[in-house]
């Protein structure tokens, strides 16, 4: 296995752009600016009321261009990070201008292999999903079409800013930008109250996480005197194990931000509701790319986590428990998109588990494989939804493999199911394997139990994945259309001459319409991507000396810095080797009497196949048995809670309602009453009433009779005169 240098020193050499060494790097900024450009052009399209598919074409072209640039960069980025300065932005100094006497945050790009790795699938999937959306959203041409693609462009720009930014300020701006884009796109159908509520929920829950990120940013400056990555690594290298409370607090705050964006306990509740957005958005933002920002944040900031092993254990446990909780909820839902949403939360839990046990490689690898198969699953769900008038209920769809026009979609969806279930020798199997092996072999014994939890979740994942797979795509052909006949919503039905079936206008006979090329092509390409995502591992399997591509991408970045000290014992004199390759290290730990790697591979396969077999029986061979099982569980009070709990999402939303929303509402009402009664009615209106009252006192004097005014005036003059005379008399006497 390759022994990647896991020391900070590999990233310490980060220097400014050397144009001679790699002229391509000068184009890196374009990968960021192209989506911005298409966003601006979409704005113009909206302003000029363009009623064609032009915005989609612009967005696809810009994202494709960005992808091409990233692809080119992938070949030239070396082992040392490069800082590309786009323009100077913030640069303040005070005092003598030394460390802690200045603040610099320029618009820099920090290009290392991790950046390029992340941008590769972000822009690649972004392009394909934009192409998919160009057909999926076509019922909105002339309505929300421009808005949709404008928001997608903004999202890609912000995501680029987040991933490629050279300092925490850029990352924060990108972080907020993707949050904004997510809000805009979840609330795309803004006439639908649930969509608006979901958008607000996502935004508000993310705010809580963003608070953590903002505080972490402040403390990073407070503690290290810089927020620029390149300088930050140097500062950490100079003072590696800071015990100051600030240094200890930063990982916890970063974690909060990551948990918000990546939908982990306790902030995961926004993601299932975010499925109210159009399906391409669910695929791109809420499954493949944006929600991995939290994983990126922790991977990128790994040197800051290393100083705090407790924080890493917390990350691991939160990830593991989220994976378990979301999997149990996913088992009992009936809405296909929601099941995939819970599976996303669950898989993100795996990634955090991987980060927590120190395998940033495993986590990044899982992000990579997950991005493809989850996008594939969402997009096939979207194609089904598009064709069946918004139907997503897995009880009302069956046997789609045999429905004309849906054979390819169904085939790809089943393929995605195998990948999500981590079937042996699929890409996800390898990446999940990496994480679980690291969990079993971690130095810190507090995380070993998570390996077993991960295996249980693997079985549950296989079960609920194929619950959808077997119900919807296999079995007898039977379907009911959804209720979106009138097409203000995102499926668009019977309005376009290009559909497979011409006679849509009449009700009664429902004909599902299969997708056309703009949906089929991205689906096939993403499926190919999902298969090829396993290539790094296949190659390593064939040739044990061949380096794993993902590992070498991650190894030469801050994500690997100090990983050895965090989770694995620095022993045998090759601490860094051990960190870099979990496999080499795994040999030191035994699980069930076997070497950890073999054991996890076997147990994982077993869990997956067991889950699939249970699912096969309950949801294909004997579908009545599933209902009977549910009834049996409901019948006994001892087991009833399992069904009700899982179906009602363990009442977490209700719990938050009672514990957080209700007290806040009570306090808000009290404050509102104080405001209305004391401040508004008492002070503001009281002060306002004072002049009026004084006015009422004098109003009788101004009755409209001129003589009345004259008497008042003369009386006043007389009083003044009398006073003057009195003074004079007194002075004279």
């Amino acid at each position, binding site marked *: 296995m390759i022994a990647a240098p896991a020391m900070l020193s590999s990233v310490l050499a980060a220097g400014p752009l050397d144009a001679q060494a790699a002229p391509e790097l000068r184009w890196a900024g374009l990968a960021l600016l192209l989506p911005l450009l298409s966003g601006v052009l979409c704005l113009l399209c909206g302003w000029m009321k363009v009623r064609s598919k032009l915005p989609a074409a612009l967005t696809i072209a810009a994202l494709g261009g960005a992808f091409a640039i990233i692809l080119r960069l992938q070949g030239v980025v070396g082992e040392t990070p490069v800082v590309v300065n786009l323009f100077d932005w913030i640069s303040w100094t005070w005092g003598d201008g030394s460390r802690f006497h200045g603040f610099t945050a320029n618009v820099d790009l920090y290009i290392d292999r991790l950046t390029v790795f992340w941008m590769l699938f972000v822009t690649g999937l972004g392009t394909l999903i934009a192409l998919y959306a160009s057909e999926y959203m076509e019922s909105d041409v002339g309505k929300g079409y421009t808005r949709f693609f404008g928001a997608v462009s903004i999202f890609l720009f912000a995501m680029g800013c987040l991933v490629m930014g050279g300092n925490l300020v850029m990352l924060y701006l990108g972080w907020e930008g993707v949050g904004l884009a997510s809000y805009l796109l979840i609330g795309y159908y803004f006439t639908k109250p649930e969509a608006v509520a979901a958008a607000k929920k996502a935004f508000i829950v993310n705010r809580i996480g963003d608070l953590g990120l903002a505080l972490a940013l402040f403390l990073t400056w407070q503690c290290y005197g810089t927020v620029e990555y390149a300088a930050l690594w140097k500062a950490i290298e100079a003072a590696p194990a800071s015990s100051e409370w600030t240094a200890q607090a930063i990982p916890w705050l970063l974690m909060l931000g990551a948990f918000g964006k990546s939908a982990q306990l306790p902030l995961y509740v926004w993601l299932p509701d975010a499925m109210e957005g159009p399906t391409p958005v669910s695929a791109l933002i809420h499954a493949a790319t944006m929600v991995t920002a939290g994983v990126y944040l922790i991977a990128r900031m790994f040197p800051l986590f290393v100083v705090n092993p407790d924080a890493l254990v917390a990350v691991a446990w939160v990830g593991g428990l989220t994976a378990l909780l979301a999997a149990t909820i996913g088992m009992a839902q009936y809405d296909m998109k929601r099941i995939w949403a819970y599976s996303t939360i669950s898989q993100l839990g795996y990634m955090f588990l991987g980060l927590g046990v120190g395998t940033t490689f495993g986590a990044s690898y899982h992000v990579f494989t997950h991005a493809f198969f989850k996008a594939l699953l969402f997009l096939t769900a979207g194609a089904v939804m598009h064709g069946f008038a918004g139907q997503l209920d897995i009880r009302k769809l069956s046997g789609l493999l045999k429905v004309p026009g849906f054979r390819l979609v169904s085939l790809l969806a089943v393929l995605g199911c195998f990948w999500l279930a981590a079937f042996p020798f699929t890409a996800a199997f390898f990446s999940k394997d990496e994480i679980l092996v690291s969990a079993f072999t971690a130095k810190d014994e507090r995380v070993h139990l998570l390996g077993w939890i991960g295996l249980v979740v693997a079985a549950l994942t296989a079960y609920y994945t194929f619950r959808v797979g077997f119900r919807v795509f296999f079995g007898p052909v039977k379907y009911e259309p959804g209720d979106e006949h009138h097409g203000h919503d995102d499926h668009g039905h019977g309005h376009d001459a290009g559909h497979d079936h011409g006679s849509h206008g009449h009700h009664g006979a429902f004909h599902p319409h299969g997708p056309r090329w703009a949906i089929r092509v991205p689906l096939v390409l993403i499926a190919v991507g999902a298969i090829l995502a396993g290539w790094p591992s296949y190659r390593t399997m064939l040739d044990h000396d061949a380096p794993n591509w993902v590992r070498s991408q991650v190894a030469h970045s801050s994500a690997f810095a100090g990983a050895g000290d965090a989770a694995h014992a620095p022993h045998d004199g090759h601490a860094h080797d051990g960190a870099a390759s979990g496999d080499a290290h795994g040999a030191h730990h035994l699980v069930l009497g076997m070497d950890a790697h073999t054991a996890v591979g076997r147990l994982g396969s077993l869990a997956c196949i067991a889950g699939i077999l249970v699912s096969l029986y309950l949801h294909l061979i004997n579908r009545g048995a599933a209902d009977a099982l549910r009834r049996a569980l409901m019948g006994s009070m001892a087991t009833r809670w399992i069904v009700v709990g899982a179906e009602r999402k363990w009442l977490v939303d209700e719990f938050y309602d009672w514990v957080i929303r209700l007290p806040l509402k009570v306090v808000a009402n009290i404050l509102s009453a104080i405001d209305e009664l004391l401040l508004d009615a008492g002070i503001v209106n009281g002060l306002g009433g004072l002049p009026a009252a004084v006015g009422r006192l004098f*109003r009788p004097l*101004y*009755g409209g009779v001129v*003589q009345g005014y004259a*008497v008042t005036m003369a009386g006043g003059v007389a009083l003044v005169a009398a006073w003057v005379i009195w003074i004079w008399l007194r002075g004279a006497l």
Partner: protein
Amino acid sequence: MNPIDPQLPPGDPLVMLGLLASAILFAIGIVGFLSRRNMITMFLCTELMFQGAGLAMISYGRQHMDLSGQVFVIFILTVAAAEAALALGLVVLLYRRKETLSAEAWKELAES
């Protein structure tokens, strides 16, 4: 006595006469203004008060051996002439509206 302010001794008969006349004029004006409702009469009464005030200025001017009072009065007369034309014009307009010269007729212009 202030050397730069040459003054007649107090009790100069001409000054006293002037001040007395001005007081009488002013009093007649006020009483007339308050007791009558006819707008032209009321206007004439204000003119009386005007002239009373002017006469007082001239008288004090003489007391102080200063021409400023008289200069003022010349100005006041000019302004009063213009103002008289204006005021009578207004009265004519008001009369055309209500066919009466009574100030009572315009009560509705009051604030309340």
